[in-house]
């Protein structure tokens, strides 16, 4: 079948990316997966996850044609087993064997736990890169595969040192780091034999980040001042010096919790105001083979999505996370427009050899570049 596109894409106008909600939705599938997972002592997790992805991917339509997820449960399971044998098992043995065999003191044990934590952060970048590479290589549209070229080691290294600098720079590296990691990932992202390009910089993000940073500090102190005011107001005077502090009343505790949650919510709004700008800006700086992207996330909708997804996951003990994943994907898809037209016949198949295994490392550490 070498006939070239005889029903050509309309030359003018942009492509459309849409969400076609799948028949059956995600509730029944979530519950079924949860049940089968328990019955198989956890092993079905990987197959359940695969079906969820198949359903989410196929709901995403470009010019009416669905994306296709081609990964398998077996691949994810194998990836997990390898990471379990090479990383998780050794780490947990290092974690508790010294206590069992040599009865090391709690301080040395704390040092061991800290070292394990560092190893996990160091592996975080690997996990992120590999998960993304696996998912892209298993994603097809019109039979053409996505892909992530480049190697995971440089990315993991960048991820590690920029993470280490977050506390050292009091958080000021965060926008720069975000742009840097995004550039590393997107300039290597392919659809077929053509790469995406990302030209975003961190400068435009700093205006809003300054406010996020300042508001974090102001809110922190304001909330603490308010909480202490409530506490001491209830005592009707300064506490006796040296003596134990009296317990606050239930009304006071409720007020203190309300203040804390209120401060958290205000911070979430400000943070979303920054993130929204970041997402939209990053999308606008991304191009694919003549096609641009426009993303229009908004602050209230982002906060709503994050808060409801969090509650749904927490209250269902994770069983409903397929619904939250679908909602996140739908949120992006419905706010994303493609600007310009791609010459599809000029996009050839991705030459990358398929990877054999799944995304074990990311699965194990719960990192996700999505």
């Amino acid at each position, binding site marked *: 079948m070498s006939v070239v596109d005889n029903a050509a894409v309309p030359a003018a106008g942009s492509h459309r990316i849409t969400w076609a909600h799948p028949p059956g939705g995600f509730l029944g599938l979530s519950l079924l997966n949860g049940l089968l997972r328990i019955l198989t002592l956890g092993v079905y997790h990987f197959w359940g996850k695969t079906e969820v992805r198949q359903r989410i991917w196929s709901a995403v339509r470009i010019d009416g044609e669905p994306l296709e997820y081609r990964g398998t449960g077996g691949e994810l399971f194998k990836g997990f087993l390898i990471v379990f044998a090479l990383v998780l098992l050794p780490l947990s043995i290092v974690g508790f064997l010294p206590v069992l065999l040599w009865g090391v003191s709690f301080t040395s044990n704390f040092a061991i736990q800290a070292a394990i934590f560092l190893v996990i952060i160091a592996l975080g970048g690997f996990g992120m890169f590999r998960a993304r590479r696996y998912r892209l290589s298993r994603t097809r549209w019109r039979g053409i595969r996505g892909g992530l070229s480049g190697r995971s080691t440089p990315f993991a290294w960048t991820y590690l040192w920029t993470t280490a600098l977050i506390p050292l720079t009091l958080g000021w590296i965060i926008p720069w780091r975000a742009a840097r990691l995004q550039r590393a990932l997107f300039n290597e992202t392919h659809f077929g034999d053509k790469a995406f390009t990302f030209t975003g910089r961190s400068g435009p993000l700093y205006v809003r980040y300054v406010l996020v940073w300042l508001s974090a500090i102001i809110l922190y102190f304001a909330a603490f001042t308010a909480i202490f005011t409530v506490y001491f107001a209830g005592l009707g005077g300064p506490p006796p010096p040296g003596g134990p502090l009296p317990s606050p009343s239930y009304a006071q505790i409720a007020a203190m919790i309300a203040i804390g949650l209120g401060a958290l919510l205000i911070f979430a709004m400000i943070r979303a105001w920054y993130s929204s700008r970041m997402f939209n800006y990053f999308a606008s700086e991304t191009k694919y083979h003549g096609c641009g992207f426009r993303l229009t996330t908004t602050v209230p909708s982002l906060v709503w999505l994050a808060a409801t997804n969090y509650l749904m996951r927490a209250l269902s003990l994770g069983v409903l996370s397929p619904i939250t994943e679908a909602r996140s994907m739908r949120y992006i898809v419905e706010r994303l427009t493609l600007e310009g037209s791609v010459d*599809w016949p000029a996009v050839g198949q991705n030459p990358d050899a398929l990877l054999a295994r799944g995304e074990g490392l990311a699965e194990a550490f719960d990192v996700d570049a999505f």
Partner: protein
Amino acid sequence: MSMPSDPTVYEGKLSDGRTAATMRVNVRFAEAGLEILPAGERRAPLVWPYANLGSSVPLRTDAPDALLSLKPAGTQTLFVADPAFSRSLRARVGDLSPARQRLAGLRPGAVFATLVAAIVGAIWYMDYRPLQAAARLMPQDAREKMGRNVVASLAAGMRTCETGPGRAALDRLTQRLVTAASDRPMPVRVVMVNWGEVNAFAAPGGQLVLTRGLVQTAGSAEEVAGVLAHELGHAIELHPETGLIRTIALGAAADLIFAGAGSATNIGLALTELRYSRAAEREADTHALRILKNAGIAARGFGDFFERIGAMYGGKRRDEKTSGEKEKADSMGRRLLTIVSTHPLTDERIAMVRAQPAYPATPALSEVDWRALREMCGAPTAPRQPASTPAQRQPGPPPAERQPGAPSGGSQDERKGTNL
């Protein structure tokens, strides 16, 4: 395929897997497979055998469209956006249905679950205790160090009473019990903590803890001997070590199965541990009776102590205002295999001790030794001297507000981090 061909022609889009271009095609259900013919072209159609068809999602009967390719790795794709096509395809190729796809995915999990069930069943049937066996593999000095860590963290902020005639008395009693417990030498250390709570527990490596509250609540040296023998029973069975290994093993297994569902897991683990600790208490009681008999110490004191505890918890504790704190203390106690835990039910334990036939016995301690033991951490009635540690670390209300001998309802939250 036994199904006849279907004359209906559906419109579809075919991509050749070489470029992202697409072409309009006409699709028909033929007998041999799906017949795909580029629109307006006169050439032989592609035929995709039904048995080789793969769908991008498990095909539901209500699917509005279908995206197909050839198994296992065909890069050509066919997209037909017509619910009638999906329905017909489902009728012809049952393997594409969600149920069949899931069944295939369930196979590894079913094998695994069956294997685990078989192993667990075999362990149960042979009455083998893998965790205790693992605990026995731990070197003694490691268990001892671990136990010292546990005792140290539990006794943080509290004085331990190490010297004087009380210490000598306690050592004499301990030695008598240890000799009676086993022919082999057994490293045991009893730490007396200056704590008002009525409590005793066994930490790994034969590290036993008694509280001032317990010794001063006990009516006789025989009662203390009974408690010590019970804790010795835990040490003999390696219950503290086994509990630690169980916590680690169950936690890891639960994490694998329910990754992320933290609280449900914790509740389940707590229940499992509760079940195990009931069995452990019974075992320790059995050992205690044997040890007391071998040592020639009357078991009556052991029963007296249970009765005392039962009266305290049944009566006095009920009208204390801080029931929440009591529960906290109880849940911590349960995890540490304490003597004062509520299970097995005290009545049952009393009955078990009382059912013991009488045997010749001598006093557990001399009158002088017994008094010395009671006053090891200071005289029972004297107010406790201020400890060298900061005031807020002191558990419970000041002794003056407490009835002598009654357990304090104080908060032990600070000491909850021992995780045993």
